[in-house]
């Protein structure tokens, strides 16, 4: 794609887009919905964060360096892990947190190395223009998937505690006893990715593809990237979630194959 093909917005054009937010702000104000402040703050944050990242990426792209690329991806990964802890609707104990971190680091590293080196074959391998945005997409989707997996696993272990113990009483291993909960957690983690693959191209055009087309790339070339990315995302989410679930269910049991904290008073 050439620079001239890309449609660059003028400052005025961009400012016109803020009319949407002004309308939204007026509506919530008139309706008395107490979200005016949130709308302003989130719009400001989005604007400032994207401007900063735009300039940062411009500098990084102009002076590509392997360490800088890796540090940025590691920062994104760290932030994603932190976000999983924050976004989960349930209290996550320290051992589950550790398994989230291990699964994210392992799953994302394996997938990114395969995707960037075998599928995309970047030259140089640290080319930040591809490495960083693709890394971002993979990390972001893994984060969403694992958040859903964490929620479902913890809720399942809490709500189906009696069933897990019932299976243990019948001589099940901890893995067998938590089998259905693990499967449910995997399904719930994978469902958004599977759904988005099914609807892709018909219900919506994915963001990266849209971006490339707007920037002047041929739709066919954009589609090829999008297919590769979707496969990479599906692979990463499943690897990360499988590693997580495989490690995390064990944290609910002790070395005597007992559910932790199950002492009761009768």
């Amino acid at each position, binding site marked *: 794609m050439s620079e001239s093909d890309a449609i660059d917005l003028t400052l005025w054009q961009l400012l016109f887009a803020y009319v949407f937010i002004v309308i939204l702000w007026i509506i919530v104000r008139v309706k008395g919905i107490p979200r005016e402040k949130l709308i302003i703050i989130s719009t400001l944050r989005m604007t400032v964060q994207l401007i900063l990242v735009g300039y940062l990426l411009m500098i990084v792209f102009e002076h590509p360096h392997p360490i800088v690329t890796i540090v940025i991806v590691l920062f994104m990964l760290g932030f994603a892990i932190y976000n999983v802890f924050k976004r989960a609707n349930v209290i996550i104990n320290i051992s589950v947190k550790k398994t989230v971190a291990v699964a994210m680091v392992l799953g994302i590293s394996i997938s990114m190395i395969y995707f960037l080196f075998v599928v995309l074959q970047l030259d140089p391998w640290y080319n930040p223009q591809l490495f960083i945005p693709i890394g971002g997409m993979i990390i972001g989707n893994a984060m969403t998937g694992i958040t859903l997996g964490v929620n479902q696993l913890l809720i399942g272990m809490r709500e189906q505690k*009696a069933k897990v*113990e*019932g299976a243990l*009483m019948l001589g*099940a*291993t901890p893995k067998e006893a938590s089998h259905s909960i693990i499967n449910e957690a995997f399904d719930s983690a994978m469902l958004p990715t599977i759904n988005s693959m099914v609807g892709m191209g018909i219900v919506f055009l994915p963001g990266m593809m849209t971006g490339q087309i707007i920037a002047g790339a041929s739709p066919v070339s954009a589609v090829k990237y999008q297919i590769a990315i979707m496969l990479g995302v599906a692979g990463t989410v499943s690897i990360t979630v499988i590693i997580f679930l495989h490690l995390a269910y064990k944290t609910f049991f002790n070395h*005597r194959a007992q559910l932790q904290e*199950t002492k009761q*008073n009768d």
Partner: protein
Amino acid sequence: MLQVENLKVNAILEMDQVKIEANKVTCIIGKSGSGKSTFLRLLNQLTSPDEGNIYFKEQDITELDPIQLRRMITMVPQTPIIFPGTVRDNLLVGQTLSGMDPTTDSQLMQVLNRMFLNKSLDMPADDLSGGEKQRLALARAMLLSAEVFLLDEPSSALDNTTATEVIDAFTAFVKESNKTMVMITHDLQLAERIADATIDMNQYSLSLDRKEYSNE
């Protein structure tokens, strides 16, 4: 068969020495909150004591693999655990989980009949009533190759007549197959009638002491 020594679970129970004989029916009685269920859970290794030892056939159970142990000492909880699927699925799940070969439909029907549960094997287990689920859980236990059956008030959801029939049938099964049964019950008459030995948890309870103390 089972023996406990200086067993202590903080704030719940303390037992110096208790023996459960093989091929006998032992009833566990005691007030609510006296630690009866905790005692059964200790024997099934669903929980560990804070102090003391439990021996199964003279061997400290902490030296045994807990999963293998639970296949030899199985437990039926007070609220029956029903897994998704049919009555047949629920009968077979115990055998699958304890690594046994599944039995035939006619054998499954036999154990259902013994527990006075005349239901189709293809019926969804969730459609059973509370009492029927309890009998299904007992029938499931009968299909296991366990040596010891720990039953936590297995007739709590049954009417008196059915309870007597079901418990008598289960006791007969235990006796004829030379197994050991340990059962929690509130029914002292029942305990007197079927038990070869009785353990009164009131005398081992720490929680009752504490409750009485705090009432003063």
